[in-house]
């Protein structure tokens, strides 16, 4: 099984990192999406495809290079999910053959992270790497290696937050590149002593059990974009539009920086700022819903529930809606700055998607409390994610713009 995955990885690396990738993108028909940026030092090719496990849906992947800090001892890894819903680079241990220096705590014991996604936790050591994305480099930054091979016992305080995901197969990816609105994945909360510490960082001494540790902010897993010497105020995801019924795969671009180069200006994009928690509001059928956000790492547009939307749950695709025919919806996104954007989207049956397709714009599902505008919302758009506290031509982040 691991061998098969490694072959899959190599194939994907070849696909995504091919220099032709950007230029061979079919021109989008008029009005169906942005022109995808040409190759440049701040442009990383991205693709929505089946990924390393060949069964991902609406998952956008990139290739990253990690190096032993300050050396040319590097490894290039494809099939890394681009996620604007988290911050920091995490790589599955089975996809990482390069040996990277382990971070240690003040006691000298290795630092190991418990990172909770909504449906899972990832457990594994914090190591230091130079992270290269296109022509940009984040030097000597902490990243997480996911897997229990070196630290096999997941503390109960970690596993009690969700179901552990340890392998490429669990993750449906070789890793996750978190380039969202924030910089460090925990912030000051993880520097607190006692029960107010949310427990993202542990030290694991050679003998004895792993214990929650106070992790200085500078040692925390960090959004690599925020650490670039330049183009470090945010990023833009550009993807072509997708016809109803889906598509096998699409290619696009991840552009670093906002208004820092000739290829990343805001143009006429509308800016929607967020609150301190990274949320905006969505108005739907006259009701306003908080807890609404854009997230390239969510593989559908997830909103409300069957009772509110009239959309039945799928029989097979857990969590998705499966209406018998495609239904059109409209809503208005409202930024914390009061800016509004009326948007429309479709809901179709995920169970009915051609099994060989990895791209479906009308994939929708349920979500408590608000709107999770996942990757289908990114199709046919250039979406800007501005990092909190960083200056851009439209003011400081955090905001989304498109």
């Amino acid at each position: 099984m691991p061998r098969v995955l490694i072959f899959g990885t190599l194939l994907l690396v070849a696909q995504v990192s091919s220099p032709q990738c950007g230029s061979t993108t079919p021109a989008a028909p008029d009005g169906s999406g942005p022109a995808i940026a040409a190759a440049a030092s701040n442009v990383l090719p991205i693709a929505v495809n089946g990924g390393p496990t060949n069964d991902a849906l609406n998952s956008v992947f990139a290739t990253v290079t990690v190096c032993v800090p300050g050396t040319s001892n590097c490894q290039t890894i494809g099939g890394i999910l681009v996620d604007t819903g988290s911050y920091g680079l995490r790589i599955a241990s089975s996809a990482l053959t390069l040996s990277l220096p382990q971070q240690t705590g003040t006691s000298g014991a290795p630092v190991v992270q418990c990172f909770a996604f909504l449906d899972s936790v990832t457990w594994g050591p914090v190591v230091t790497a130079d992270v290269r994305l296109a022509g940009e480099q984040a030097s000597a930054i902490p990243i997480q290696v996911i897997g229990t091979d070196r630290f096999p016992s997941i503390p109960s305080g970690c596993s009690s937050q969700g179901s552990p995901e340890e392998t490429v197969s669990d993750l449906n990816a070789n890793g996750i590149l978190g380039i969202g609105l924030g910089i460090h994945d925990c912030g000051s909360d993880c520097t607190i002593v006692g029960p107010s510490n949310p427990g993202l960082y542990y030290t694991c001494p050679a003998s004895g059990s792993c214990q929650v540790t106070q992790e200085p902010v500078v040692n925390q897993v960090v959004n690599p974009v925020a650490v670039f010497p330049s183009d470090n105020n945010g990023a833009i995801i550009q993807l072509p539009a997708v016809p109803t019924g889906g598509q096998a795969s699409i290619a696009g671009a991840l552009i670093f920086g906002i208004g820092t180069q000739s290829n990343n200006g805001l143009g006429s994009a509308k800016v929607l700022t967020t609150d301190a928690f990274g949320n905006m509001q969505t108005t739907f059928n006259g009701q306003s819903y908080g807890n609404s956000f854009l997230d390239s790492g969510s593989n559908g547009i997830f909103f409300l529930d069957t009772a509110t939307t009239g959309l039945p749950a799928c029989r097979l695709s857990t969590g998705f809606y499966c209406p018998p025919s495609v239904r059109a919806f409209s809503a208005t996104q409202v930024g914390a700055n009061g800016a509004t954007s009326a948007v429309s989207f479709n809901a179709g049956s995920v169970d009915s998607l051609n099994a060989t397709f990895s791209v479906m714009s009308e994939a929708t599902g349920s979500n408590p409390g608000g709107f999770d505008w996942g990757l289908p919302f990114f199709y046919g758009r250039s979406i800007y994610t501005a990092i909190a506290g960083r200056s851009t031509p439209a003011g400081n982040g955090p905001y989304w713009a498109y």
Partner: protein
Amino acid sequence: MTRTIMPMLLALALPAGASASLGGTVATVEADRVHMKAALIGITQSGAYTVHTILSPTGTKIREYYGASGVIFGVAWDGAWQPDLRQLFGSYFDRYQRALQGARKARKTRGPVAVDDGTVVVRIGGHLRSVVGVAYVPQLIPAGVDPGVVK
């Protein structure tokens, strides 16, 4: 001061294994609170059910719903950090984990959690530093109460 001591006594009086929340009795609300070192910040009654709101030390608000029988039929939370779900779900936590793992075999949602294994319903949404979740056991909901009250 009195308030802090009483719940601790209650928790000590509980038999081992009773520190469950969902499906447990109202006494376990206090057990949860003590286990999580949380503060009780509100009690509201709405006809057929009562809601205890507690504030976890990480700032996450947790609401526990129980009816006249005292059995907790639902929990909901929102805040920057996921609460201790094993504590909150009690005996339903293992079912929840199994259902999550089963869902991975199907076309998988990446993003929110939507679990309904026929016994327990769990929905979790959000992103890093902002989590919203609800969980309830339909069979435990008092007659005439809509599951939608758990929010």
